Structure formats: structure tokens, C-alpha cells
């Protein structure tokens, strides 16, 4: 059974489209929600937590509509993006208050809060006011409040933003541990490798549409088909460009600056290998070789165009 079911789901804000006719099933375990800024990730999460209502279509979480549905929402732990805090509270007061609003009482609430704070590594800082926290600490305390009432589904909006590599590693470990214990997790990010470290199940969205869904390996294979643009800064750009123009795997060459050659290829790995040989054979002095469009935005752009075709 799907944990989250999106049925021809659309959401728009006036004339701005947040989600556009999305149909998908998000299954148990960890699912990574990937997309560049403005793709519609937070909109999807706000819809799943009943903060927003669909403009069209429907969303079901554990088979029920989340809007103003406390029975369902008490099964969800939600970590919002950004810094929504009552910043005069200490971390402990923040988590304890939200645990109590989630229905925990007395000693059970205090015990659950202590555990949640420990799991996120915030014991040493829980007594301090949130206004004095670093970005990483804020992320951790937000995650702690999602854990205290032991929800069956965690909805985490960009939980890694602002965290250092150690915190990222620890949080990744925590999420995997929770998933192994049966917690379902929907986690959003605009960084592919963050999500890859967590799960193989991904949902990629861009401009409010799903551009790829399923196993991350399969999506990666799709990405290999796209043309790559490679930039080479070299002392003899005309000589390099004329050589590259003769290659079958190169679909376009240009000299963008006096010392820079840009070329497009559908086989980047083979191109990099052959480029090395070419440079050595011709005695060229190379200052830089770099992929121009490895960013996730470029990947999403490609997938969006591909889907449109």
C-alpha cells in the first residue's frame, strides 16, 4: 500500500504553478524528493501535511486526506524548511512543547523528548535558547521535534541544509536507522548525492511536474544519455577546436573566450579519455577541464525537456 498517494494533484498560487497534475505513489521506506529550488518540493510536503489544500486532484496519506485530520497528522512528524521557531524557547522547551501538543503527557513526554534530543546529538545544547543556535543545530532540533512522538511517517523538508559533513553523516545514519525500524521517510533535497546516500528510491520534480521516479540507478542511466558540455582552457584553442570537430562523438565545438573551448558530446566518459590522449600528443598546455552543466538544475532542465518531447 502506498504511504502517500498523489492523484492528478495540482496546486497553484494565483497564476504561479506549484504542482501540475502530479500522479504518483510514494511507497514505504525512504523516498528522496529531488528538485531544484522552486520545483514544488515544499508544496508537495505542505499538501501531505495538510497545511495546503489541493487546487485540483487529491492527496492521501495512509489512505486518508490530511487536511485538518488530527488522527492522521498525529502519525506524521514534520520538519519544515527554513527557520520557523519560537526563538525565545530553549531547544528542550521547543521539543517538549511540541511533544505535548502531539498528545504526550507527563513523564512519558519528558522521556520521549530526552530520547529524541539524544538521537539528534543535541543533548549538550538543549538547555540553550534557540536564537543562539547555529544553522546546523537548528536543523537538528527541528528533526528532534519530529521524532519525539514516534511517528510512522517523517516528512523532512531540506533537513541537510546548513549542516556540516559530520552532522550530515550522522543524520543520514539516523534516518537509515529509523527506516530500518519501520519509519517511512519522505526527505527533500536539491543535492542528488545527499539523497543517494540515504535511499535508492527517488522522485524528481521540476516546475511542478514529475520528471523522473523510481530507482536512482535507473535515473542515472537516463542522465547518461544527455549531451554534456565540457569546457577546456588551453594555450592553443584553435588547434584543439579543429581536432575536436573531427570527432564523431562531438556534436558541437565553439571558442567562447580567447583561451576557452566548449564542446558538446553524448559520450562524456569516452570524450574525457580521448581528450587526455589528444592533449599529450599535441603538446597542449591545459589550465582547466570541467563539465559545464553537472549541476542538478541542468540535469532537471534536461529531464524536463526530454519529458516534454
Amino acid at each position, binding site marked *: 500500500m502506498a504511504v502517500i498517494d498523489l492523484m492528478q494533484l495540482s496546486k497553484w498560487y494565483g497564476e504561479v504553478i506549484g504542482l501540475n497534475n502530479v500522479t504518483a505513489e510514494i511507497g514505504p521506506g525512504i523516498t528522496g524528493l529531488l528538485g531544484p529550488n522552486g520545483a514544488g518540493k515544499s508544496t508537495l510536503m505542505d499538501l501531505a501535511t495538510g*497545511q495546503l489544500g489541493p487546487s485540483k486532484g487529491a492527496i492521501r496519506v495512509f489512505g486518508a486526506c490530511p487536511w*485538518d485530520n488530527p488522527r492522521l497528522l498525529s502519525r506524521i512528524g514534520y520538519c*519544515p524548511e527554513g527557520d520557523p521557531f519560537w526563538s525565545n524557547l530553549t531547544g528542550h522547551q521547543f521539543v517538549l512543547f511540541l511533544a505535548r*501538543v502531539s*498528545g504526550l503527557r507527563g513523564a512519558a513526554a519528558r522521556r520521549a523528548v530526552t530520547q529524541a534530543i539524544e538521537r539528534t546529538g543535541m543533548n549538550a545544547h538543549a538547555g540553550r535558547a534557540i536564537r543562539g543556535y547555529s544553522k546546523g543545530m537548528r536543523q537538528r532540533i527541528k528533526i528532534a521535534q519530529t521524532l519525539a512522538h514516534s511517528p510512522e511517517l517523517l516528512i523532512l523538508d531540506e533537513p541537510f541544509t546548513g549542516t556540516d559533513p559530520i552532522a550530515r553523516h550522522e543524520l543520514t545514519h539516523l534516518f537509515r536507522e529509523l527506516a530500518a525500524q519501520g519509519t517511512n521517510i519522505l526527505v527533500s533535497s536539491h543535492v542528488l548525492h545527499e539523497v543517494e546516500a540515504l535511499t535508492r528510491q527517488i522522485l524528481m520534480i521540476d516546475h511542478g511536474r514529475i520528471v523522473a521516479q523510481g530507482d536512482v540507478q535507473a535515473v542515472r542511466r537516463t542522465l547518461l544519455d544527455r549531451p554534456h558540455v565540457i569546457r577546456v582552457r588551453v594555450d592553443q584553442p584553435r588547434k584543439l577546436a579543429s581536432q575536436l570537430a573531427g570527432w564523431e562523438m562531438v556534436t558541437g565545438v565553439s571558442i567562447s573566450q580567447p583561451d576557452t573551448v566548449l564542446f558538446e558530446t553524448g559520450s562524456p566518459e569516452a570524450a574525457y579519455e580521448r581528450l587526455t590522449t589528444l592533449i599529450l600528443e599535441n603538446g597542449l598546455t591545459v589550465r582547466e577541464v570541467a563539465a559545464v552543466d553537472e549541476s542538478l538544475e541542468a540535469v532537471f532542465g534536461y529531464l524536463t525537456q526530454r519529458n516534454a518531447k
Partner: protein
Amino acid sequence: MRPALPIGAISALFLFTIRQMVRDAKFWAVAAALFLPCALALLIQRFHPPINDFAPAWHLYHGLSQFMFLMGLLPLACMIYGTGLIGSEAESRTIGYLITRRLRRRTVLLTKFVATALVLIVVCGVAASAIYASVVCRLDWQSLAPKSAALTDWNPAQELMVYLNITVLGVIGFLAIFSLIGLLTAKPLAMSVFYMVVVELVIGNLPARARAYSLIHQLRVTAAAAIPRLVELFELPSDLGAQLFPANGSGVPEVLIVSGAALFLACVLVTARELTPSKVARD
């Protein structure tokens, strides 16, 4: 089967609302403003020539209580807190924590309403008592009573009780109205000021029956029912005075009906509306 009322969650939100309210600097600014009539009373008495009877004190007490406290400061305090009851949480996006939990949206609204009303009732009650203390407690009762033929039956302690009851009614009524305005519009403060000026201060003071639509007038009717001499303060023609302040009248049902209706509509709105900040860049 209906789920049980989440008492623990409600009491947590109730206590949290009170805690956050009294720890905010805004609260102390509002509280200080509510004590202005008391300060003014002390100032006037300090520079006023000695009085020979109760009349100046009676006018000072009721003038400050009616025109400065009930018509101005109490609605202002309710406006500040009512318009932000849900709106301030929505602007800071902390509302997301509250409506994704065990509480229905209307329960969040009502819990915050009751907690806020309770704090305002206490503060306004103390401020109303301070006006009484600053005027009445300073009177030389034994020497003035024989000289005050027109006010021999003046019972300021009983009148204080009337004002305390009206304070409760006023806080409930105004807080309900401003909570509704806070949910109705993206510019609640501007809309509330407009409402206050047009409905309460202009219509509410017209020498005509239209003033019955104002909450301030209904509070005065309630006060006048218990303190008939109060009608003199408003300097109305006698026939209009009798119409606007009927001898057996009471504004209590009107205030309660208006408050109930405003709260009901606010509950409908908070359940139906998305509680997002007024200006938001959404991913």
C-alpha cells in the same frame, strides 16, 4: 466513534500561549498603556483645586473608565492581540507546527483565544481597579459625603464590580471581532483600525439608534443598566437617552451573540483557509 478531546495537547497550547504572551515586550507595552487612565487620574488630582463634593471625582472616575478605558485602550489591546492570534503564527510560519499535530485547526484558534482572553481580562481588570483606586481611594469620604447631596447613594465599590464585569464582556467581544478580522483580510491591522474608527467611534457615538450596532455602545448599555446615572455622561437629549439606554435594557445578550457569531465565523475560516504568510516565496 468520535476521538476524545486531546486535553493534554489543549492544556499545553493554552499554557504556552500565556507564557509566550507575558514574555513578550509587547505585552508590557500594552499593559503600561492600559494604566494610562490611572496615571492621568493621579495627574489631574495633583493639579486640581481641592474639591467640595463627590461630583468631580464621580465624573473623573466614569469619564476615564468610559471614554479612555472602555472606548480606547481595551479595544486597542484586543486589536493588537486579536488580529495576530493566528496571523502572527502564520507570518512566522510556526503555525505549521500546531496544525500538523493532534489539534484541529479550530481547537488551536479557540485555545489561543481563551488563553489570550484570560490574560487580557486579568490585565484589564487590574487596570480598571487601578482607575478606581487612583480616584476613589484618595477621597476624604467622611468630609465629602455630607456635602454631596446628589451623590449620597454613590457606591464606587459596586460600580467597580460593574466595570470588572464589563471588562470581561468587552475583552471577549472585541477579541472575537478582531480575531475574525485577522482571518478575513491580509491587512488585519489596517482593517481593524478602520472598523474601530467607523463602527465603534463614529457610529457608536452617533446621537441615533444606529449606535446600537457598536459593541462599545452595548457595553455602555450594560453599564447604564447597573449605574443609571451614567447616561448623564453622554449628554443626550432625554428622549433619545431613554431610547438608547432603556431602563430595563442590557447589552449582555447582544455582546455575547456578536462574540459567538464572530468566533464561529473565525472557526469556519481557520478550518477552510490555508494559513500561509501574507508574502511568501514558495518552493
